[in-house]
């Protein structure tokens, strides 16, 4: 089981900030992202953003990084704080 978090415009577009997902086998962030997009709208267009950032366990991670069971995975747009 992994936890998915969505922030800012993604959270609003998807209508949720958090969900839990069962992972059959270890997969990469890219594979997870593809799987989510295959759900259709609003996933397909919301997560089809070349500026999308991903984090595993609160650290920014590249698309090829593997997700392990129990991980917290977050999707968010470029940050605009400060």
């Amino acid at each position: 089981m992994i936890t998915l978090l969505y922030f800012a415009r993604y959270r609003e577009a998807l209508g949720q900030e958090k969900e839990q997902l069962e992972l059959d086998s270890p997969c990469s962030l890219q594979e997870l992202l593809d799987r989510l997009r295959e759900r259709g709208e609003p996933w397909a267009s919301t997560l089809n953003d070349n500026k999308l950032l991903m984090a595993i366990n609160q650290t920014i991670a590249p698309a090829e990084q593997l997700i392990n069971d129990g991980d917290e995975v977050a999707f968010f747009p470029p940050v605009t704080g400060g």
Partner: protein
Amino acid sequence: MDKLQLSIQTDDFNIEDEYQYLRQGNSDSGAVVTFLGQVRDFNQGEAVSQLELEHYPGMTESVLKKLLEEADKRWAIDRAKIIHRVGPLNASDKIVWVAVASAHRGDAFHACEFLIDALKTQAPFWKKERSATGERWLDARDSDQDKAQQWMKND
């Protein structure tokens, strides 16, 4: 007292109190440089304008802690503190405060500017503007990315 401090909070803060806290038991520092970011009046002429600050609890603190530690490695710092507000904010409200105390003012200036530049591109905060005409998420600015890149070149 911790040398490196950070606070994510909804409440406003008093800069004089924060300054007193920074120098408490710290009479070695001759220089304190601070950066304050405040809400700009982005809807001049419109009656209502508000900013909503969202963040990623946990990751925010861990990113800011790493940035403070990096600043501490690169410059001679006696104390440093970052305060960042979240939640709804109004025009002219304080958003972020970065303060660095050092025996050397050049170090205080550099560390303070590095911290705010890095915060703006690395810390997971997002701003949404609300006005009478609607609301929109702010876009990240290329100029912020450029500023952050500069600090890596200087390594």
